[in-house]
């Protein structure tokens, strides 16, 4: 079963299915530079809000904590 936090991140960053190429699969690829298309995230709310107002587009917000039990480098 997918980790409850990894699920949305994998689902949103990897492609049309929920169980999609994760880092595990990428590591086994012949060409690791061939990444699947990904969601283009902005890094801050202020930036996103300004761009949404400018372009009149709806906003998708998906916050996540970039640490696992206080260790960085893992969602």
């Amino acid at each position, binding site marked *: 079963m997918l980790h409850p936090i990894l699920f949305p991140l994998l689902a949103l960053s990897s492609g049309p299915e929920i169980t999609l190429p994760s880092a595990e699969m990428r590591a086994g690829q012949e060409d690791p530079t061939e990444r699947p298309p990904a969601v283009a*995230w902005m890094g801050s709310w202020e930036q996103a809000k300004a761009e949404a*107002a400018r372009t009149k587009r709806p*906003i998708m*917000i998906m916050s996540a904590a970039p640490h696992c039990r206080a260790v960085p480098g893992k969602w």
Partner: protein
Amino acid sequence: MVTASRAFVCVRPATYESAAEGKLLLSLFRGRLGNLENSVFALLSPDGKERLTKTGRSPGMVFKTAAQMAERLTGLAQEVGPKRTKTFRSQQLPAYPTLRLALNVAACDDRPLIVRLNPSVPSKTKKKATDLLIEVAWSDEWVGRVHYAHATAADVRALEGMKKGAAIPESGYVSLSPAPLGQGAELLGTAAERASKAQLEKLLQEAVEGHKVSAVLSSRDHVRAGKRAGVSWETVIPVTDPGRLDKDRARRRLDRDGK
């Protein structure tokens, strides 16, 4: 789903890294204890005031499948977005607020990080150069493939793992490969302040090729490796996820009862 997301302005704030964003996230979704949890998902109107669907800890709490989510995203974009729906291209670099955070996020996503150097010195030339990077960042070829940050050359030189005497220019661009624990980086390449669009694309291409995909560890092994290395992430605001609170409670009980 990725295609459907292009009609939205997508933002991924790091939870617990800003008091203002923490307040916003809490207003969008409260967990079972009424606290801010590790992740929050919401779809909002262009002014950011109206919720377009119910909110949750993840898309899985709102949609049954990825296909259903993609369909709903497309429908919502047509309902509330601009009538002539073109792919969203920002006029801003999708940069994380700090180099420290950007490096950590890049490690989490296992992607290289492109740093725009010395952005605090304003000049017409500098703006033009940054605009060129923005154009590349939002192009079909490069959108979402690498991460970005603004920093000074001194900040980059001070990173853990940076070789002494590494040729970091005072201004321009550098590409970095984040260390797996997100605390340091390896220099992959540089580009000059007056780099052309082709040179910036080359910098990104070489970054993607030069970044070694990390050996993927399970969360448990990653945490073990981090603890062994003495690495710890300090958040800006306290972590209030029930998982963390349960562990803190259990630890206190253990200390109190000596069991």
